[in-house]
């Protein structure tokens, strides 16, 4: 079984050739490849069982299981954080015990499992509550990207398939704009948006979300075009079903698969990007409420005397992002017919 599939170097768009093409083309190629996947189904006789089969394959993949366990743990901690955290994350109850001006910090101890931060707040409680913030930002940012991306990509795709010459023009214009956005590194785009709107948690969600729009748009549009050539669309057209109805109730639902897979992958990047924005000071200005990126940036000042203050949030970000990436990649591989035996 292809638990660790080797990429096919002859196939454009797979990992083997990625190093040679420019970054944004590589990103675009990866997105397009994912969009094709759904179009190919049915040809090899698997039909509607594709999700079930993918699940079967993922169950045997250690990568997928590791990812799923991490993600599940993270989500559980985030959801039940108020119950798990022993103290209030903002309470400076031990404020008289830490002296940042003299490099005197309090490490892990019975009362405070991860020690105290530079203002005498319980590090463990901050990490746990911070997980919730991180999940919230990740999910909302992904939703923003998903919604706007789906509207743009869906319009472009539907126009291209059903709109005739005019439709293709519309598709062309929309997609060139999307390509321009795609050519910009996501973090740079997000920083620009955040700097324009001003620092707040909402800004981070919007900024990261906007940076994800082109990926979702291109993905959905690709999937819809590949659906557009199929017989059932032709049949519906022959029966005189209205174009809008074909797009919304026939093509769109059949094209959502790859977009959903992408969402998992996007969550990972969204978490990293959000942490990066917070780290750069574009996040919530009230940093007393914990967020891993902000915690990391605050801890930087004390790196030489209290490295653990930076290590905890950094590990949190790394492990969570790894979990989502592993799960997303495994899902993508499981769904890719080219990698199936």
């Amino acid at each position, binding site marked *: 079984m292809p638990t660790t599939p080797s990429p096919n170097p002859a196939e454009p768009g797979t990992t083997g050739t990625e190093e040679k093409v420019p970054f944004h083309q590589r990103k675009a190629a990866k997105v397009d490849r994912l969009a094709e996947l759904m179009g190919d189904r049915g040809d090899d006789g698997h039909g509607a069982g594709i999700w079930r089969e993918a699940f079967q394959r993922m169950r045997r993949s250690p990568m997928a299981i590791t990812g799923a366990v991490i993600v599940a743990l993270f989500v559980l901690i985030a959801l039940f954080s108020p119950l798990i955290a022993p103290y209030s994350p903002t309470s400076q109850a031990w404020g008289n015990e830490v002296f940042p001006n003299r490099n005197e910090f309090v490490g892990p101890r019975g009362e405070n499992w991860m020690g105290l931060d530079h203002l005498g707040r319980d590090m463990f409680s901050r990490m746990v509550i911070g997980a919730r913030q991180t999940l919230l930002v990740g999910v909302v940012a992904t939703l923003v990207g998903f919604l706007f991306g789906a509207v743009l990509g869906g319009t472009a795709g539907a126009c291209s398939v059903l709109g005739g010459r005019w439709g293709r023009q519309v598709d062309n214009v929309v997609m060139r704009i999307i390509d321009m956005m795609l050519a910009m590194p996501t973090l740079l785009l997000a920083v620009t948006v955040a700097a324009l709107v001003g620092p707040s948690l909402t800004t981070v969600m919007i900024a990261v979300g906007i940076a994800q729009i082109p990926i979702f748009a291109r993905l959905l549009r690709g999937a819809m075009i590949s659906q557009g050539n199929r017989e059932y669309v032709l049949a519906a057209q022959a029966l005189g079903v209205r174009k809008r109805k074909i797009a919304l109730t026939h093509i769109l639902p059949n094209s959502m698969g790859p977009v959903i897979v992408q969402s998992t992958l996007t969550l990972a990047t969204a978490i990293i990007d959000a942490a990066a924005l917070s780290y750069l*000071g574009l996040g919530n200005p*009230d940093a007393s409420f914990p967020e891993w990126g902000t915690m990391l940036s605050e801890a930087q000042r004390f790196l030489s*005397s209290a490295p653990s203050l930076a290590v905890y949030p950094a590990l949190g970000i790394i492990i969570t992002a790894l979990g989502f990436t592993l799960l997303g990649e495994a899902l993508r591989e499981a769904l890719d017919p080219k990698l199936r035996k």
Partner: protein
Amino acid sequence: MFMKSSRKPLGLVAVAASLALMATACAESDRGDGGGEEQPFVFAAAGDIASLDPFLASDGETFRYSRQVFETLLEHESGGSEIVGGLAETWDQSEDGTRWTFNLHDNVKFHDGDDLNADAVCANFDRWFNLTGAYQSSNNSYYWQKIFGGFAENDEDHAPPEPRFVSCDAEDELTVTIEVSEYSSLYPGGFSLAAFGIMSPTSLEAMEGQEITGEEGNPTLPEYTQVPGTVAGTGPFTVEEWNQDQGEITMERFEDYWGDPAGFETMILRAIPDENARRQALEAGDIHGYDLVAPADVAPLQEAGFEVPTRDVFNLLYLAYQQDHEALADLEVREALSHAVNRQRIVDTILPEGGEVASQFHPDTLDGWSPDVREIEYDPELAAEMLAEAGHEDLEIEFCYPTEVTRPYMPAPKDIFDVITEDLQEAGVTVEAKSYEWAEYINQTDSGNCPLYLLGWTGDYNDAYNFIGTWFSTPNSAWGLDDEELFDKMEEVSTNPDQEERTAGYQELNEMVMDVLPGLPISSSPPSIAFSGDINPPNVSPLTQENFAEASWK
């Protein structure tokens, strides 16, 4: 002085700059071993300068540069706050304190070869007094307006105050008499301000007709303030190059200097906004000294063989209550909030060693400090009770703090903000955090948009008026304070020529201010400055007015 930093557009720029600087700080230093005479001395400041002409500036970074290049009639003693002669060897005041006579040093040359004489000094004062147009905006002549009031012809648009300056006369070759309209405790301290550095007559002629253009609040300064070549002073260094992209200003030793020549042939002031990046640059040998050392870095740097002298305490950090805010107009609310803040904890855990809780708007190292002001104890329960009594038990309030900045009186603004926020919340206040980048922060707090905010002050010269007078002498939007009684008393005391009566008056004023409680004085703390081991550092000044000509290679 506020030490306003230069007008940078957005946090983004600062972020990018500090990232870039951090990257360069990591690079290996290409400096050879041992300091040679020809090697430039590089000193890192927190910000770039604003103008080559200090008259237009009000920020400490510009004055740090201008003190090396220009000299003033009077100065502060090296490493202290006593006023001593600068360009003037001796000086005298008339009985009523309105005529000030200065006897200038002989054989003093400007960088462009002009001689310093009484006419040259008066040319400077006459130029300042006769400035017109946008020069009269308080942004562009802040200290002139503070010390000498308005201009020969006050421009209605900018509405400067009535002029206090009357005339400047050259009695003979080396004797200058400056007349002011009334005695004020602003003098003689005002003559020592770096903003009034004396420039050569030739350079003054070249400046003529160069105007400030652009909008109010975002002015375009004239070319002579941006490109070296025009301005010429008498100081131990000449200004050679100002690279604004790098935030770097290069100065050369002035060989014909009248006093002791500078210890360095070349001195470079470089702007490194990030505190950590400054320390790393020093550790890597890229720079040979920097200002505003984080309290936690002092001991490790000393252990690593760096010289980290600490300045004497001459500053004040306060929490302002802007009284245009409805709740803050109520004295009981202001008292309640003051009882809620644990100032001792801020001093113990955040400020550098040697910091003290301030009992009044006045450091205790200065005449006029009163031992009899009312004490404000830390008592969170009392605070909550008082808020309830005043009918504000669920007070919601905006609280502003500055980002990406450290000041001599405020080493870690964010930490101090966090501690106070937590204290206020303990007392039942809901705090809404607002943060601004420094230049914008000054604008916002100045115009009264922040009900609660943190700010401070480093003294310019040794007089009480430079502290309480700066804040509480006229109605202004920064405090939203309108207390006729206090303002009248301030006016009366500051124009009293008798030193002893004045000191007693300032003590009373300090007591009055604490009864009115326009804000909560938090602390006075000693800022540190760091030098590499191969430097003989200059005497450090409580006024942050170091003279770098005193420093040299070991």
